[in-house]
């Protein structure tokens, strides 16, 4: 793989988790109270995917990174003031809801269409990245469906490591049960990698990188078309925040082993 990769990262915003997130009934789907006013952050799993993508692109000359984001335009713009400072990429924006109450199938249709429309994207060199989960809906299926629609069948889920080997083949570590990895090797691009956490820290901000990215980000936001997420066929009965359970008992003079044993017993139910 000497020409470099074309890495497309699917990722959008989620409400900042420290905000009060209270579901309220909305028009066609529930919403969060004051959702439009809540500050948002880059979905953490998408973030890992983006940083891994940039890292791989930097190591592989000729590569390029796109970030495809479906979200409310104005909020995406605010988010970009932070995310654009992290790593170099080109934004493809779609204007639409990014809440936890959208249907992942419809989201996947919109994202796949947007990716098909990217100018100069070489699908034979495509690595489709995204998160294996999300801090909002967490359907855990969106990236796979996008991959299917683009006809990419080499799919890796909960990826923590992706390495290009000497001959151009790609070795991937996927999380599996019991804290273990499944190691696979495939011939190369195209492939789908839905990332777990990867291993890279969040890059520090660099306004210089941000300024560079902004040259394409602002036009992309300006021309972001509306994504149709009608939610057809979905009926929302109720939406609620999981109840917090708190059972306090004052225990004195127990050893660490006894406490650990008790916790294990409790978890096992």
């Amino acid at each position, binding site marked *: 793989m000497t020409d470099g990769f074309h890495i497309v990262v699917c990722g959008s915003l989620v409400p900042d988790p*420290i905000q*009060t997130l209270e579901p309220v009934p909305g028009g066609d789907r529930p919403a969060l109270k004051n959702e*439009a*006013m809540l500050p948002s952050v880059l979905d953490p799993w998408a973030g890992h995917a983006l940083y891994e993508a940039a890292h791989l692109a930097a190591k592989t000359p000729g590569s390029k990174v796109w970030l495809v984001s479906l979200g409310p335009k104005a909020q995406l713009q605010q988010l970009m003031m932070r995310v654009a400072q992290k790593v170099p990429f080109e934004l493809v924006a779609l204007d639409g809801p990014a809440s936890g109450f959208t249907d992942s199938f419809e989201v996947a249709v919109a994202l796949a269409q947007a990716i098909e429309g990217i100018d100069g994207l070489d699908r034979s060199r495509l690595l489709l990245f995204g998160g294996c989960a999300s801090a909002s809906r967490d359907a855990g299926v969106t990236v796979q469906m996008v991959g299917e629609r683009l006809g990419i069948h080499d799919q890796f889920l909960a990826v923590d490591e992706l390495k290009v080997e000497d001959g151009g083949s790609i070795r991937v570590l996927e999380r599996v049960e019991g804290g273990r990895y499944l190691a696979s090797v495939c011939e190369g691009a195209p492939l789908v990698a839905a990332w777990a956490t990867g291993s890279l820290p969040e890059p*520090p*901000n660099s306004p210089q990188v941000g300024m560079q990215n902004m040259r394409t980000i602002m036009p992309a936001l300006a021309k972001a078309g509306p994504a149709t997420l009608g939610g057809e066929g979905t009926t929302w009965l109720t939406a609620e925040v999981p109840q917090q359970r708190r059972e306090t008992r004052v225990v004195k003079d127990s050893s660490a082993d006894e406490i650990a044993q008790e916790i294990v017993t409790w978890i096992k139910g």
Partner: protein
Amino acid sequence: MSATTDRQEPDTLRTLPGDDVRQIMWRFADRFDLQMVVQSVRAVARGPVARLVAGGGRNSHDWTDEKNALLAAFDESGITALGAEPEHGGYLEGPQNLAMALAAFELSWVDAGAATSSLASHLGLSPIHEHGTPEQKQTYLSRAVPTNDGDICRGAFALTEPLPYVGVDTGVLSGKAKIAEWNDGEEPILQIDKRGRFITGMDFANMVTAAVDSADERINGSFFVILEEGDEGMFDRGAPTLKLVHQLSSTRDPIFNLKVPASRIVGGYTIKDGVLTPNVSHSEVLNDVFRHTRVPVGLMTSAKLLSAVEPIIRYQRGRFRGGEGKPGTPRHDLGLQQKEDALHRLIDVWATGEAMTSLGLATARLFDEYDPLKREKDRIFAERGVTGIRAMMGELKTIEKAALEFLDGRASGETSSGAVPGEDPLIRFVIDDSLTSVLCPATKLWNTGYGATVMREAVSLVGGYGITEDCPGFLGQKWMDAQLEATYEGPEAVQRRQLSITMANPVFLRQFDDWIVELGQIAGNKAGLGASTLASAMKLWRWTLDHLRETKDADGKPLFRDNRQGVTFPMGDALSWLVASRYQMLDVLELESKGKERPELAESLPGTVQFFTDLCRVQAARAAGEVGRMCAELVYGYQRQPSGEALATFQALRSELDESIAEARLAKDRAARSLTGVMIPEALDYPA
């Protein structure tokens, strides 16, 4: 919890104002470069800086490894390079006063010592930035931008000297310069002796700009000189200052005894008849440096007040939770917010913080406009051969006249023919100069001095917690820190002294009169802001100023004189209250008009505007009260048996002012109610 209907009233504040709202109010909605700077600085402030403070990093006077690590964080995130021009490796185009002010605001939201630390190097380089020769600029300003090779120039600014020398009075320099060697046809070598007191950045600065005076008949006058670590002689960093505040900045009392070439004189020098004359005196440097650097200091304190709002609300609401009141009861849900005084005082803190920030950022933006005008004025003067203080003053007097004529024309609507002088850079310079000369000291004086007082109120609102290290939002430390901000870079007396002169400038007063008219129009278009209250207070201040300038006290001594600080200083304070309130209103009007163009704000805008409008009214009433009190003390307090026609006018103005306060308390009640419903995050977004 099941989904419930949103029962909040449409016209009240729903969430704490976010970046989208602030960008409009503070006029950087279309400046993506600045929005990125804000985010970048915020990540450092609420990340490494907050972790260090929460971990007890402030409990030491020493410059620890952890504190030193912040410098790398500043470098990495672009904070260090702020203030550098693109030609020297900076990444922001154009003047950077607003950028620096926003950065100081963001850092001080968490810890102003960190802000000082990041700004101090800039202060050290400022003499060169303002007056350096092209070679000095190239050498030092480029090296001040972080690069990968790790070589970086970090500056310190050494003006203040051990007692009994330089402090408020910057003329009594004990730092001296002599000629050490001067061989024929060669550059003179200077011997510099300077002791500093309270010099920021001295733990790591490798370059210092120091103020010194001549102690040699072959040197003419005072100047700033560049000293470097590695120069021949002694570069002793001195003892650390045992300060109670801003512990994330480094402060020491250094001693320098160094030999340096005369090319280190900031701004260069001329030699005539065997005497070396620096091109720029130390006081000229000070004038231009402090004009710029005092504004971010004002924002350091305003950030503290606004940052206190969220932790105070959280404390108030949660005060009784876990006790007897069950969820759903007012005791559980509202806690201390059941008490009117707790809410009213928080409104005072918030309203003051808004006015301070609006004033400070308006001043920073004005400097962004002013800097290129000043350069253009210097260029035109040089081209016309206008040199020397006297010639320049004469020329400026002529331009001042033209500026006044232009302002008269503008006010009477004759702008079409007056459009040409309005574009004249010299006229614009004189107008902006008169404004910056008031707004800069007003920002520094009022934001920091009164800010410290209001910060004490904020601390009170969290009870005993307020004065512990555990207080969320570091409120106790912020209270003490505000006192330093009121002191360094020129204590309040210095700002008041400057205001006593600049507030009487006819070009300023001419604009002030226009503002009164403008506020009358605003009051007609938008009720509720308190614009008529402010206009009445401004009229009273304006009348009082004229009165004091032509009146004598009971013993026949003139009142408005330089050395009568008892008269001039309160007038400066009163003016600061007025301008702050004005800029606060202008920002809310901006939010209202520009916010309407933003569909994403449609839902929240009316409530946000209503709340900020109420804050304006609360602040205007407070400002009017203060101004009324100060003016009355001055008008009556110097007479034994006050009487006469003039006093009747004063009384009429005073009673107009009092009446204009109508409804202000109703606005305060409404704003206070908003505080009980506003949604806040579950936790502070930085460790505390």
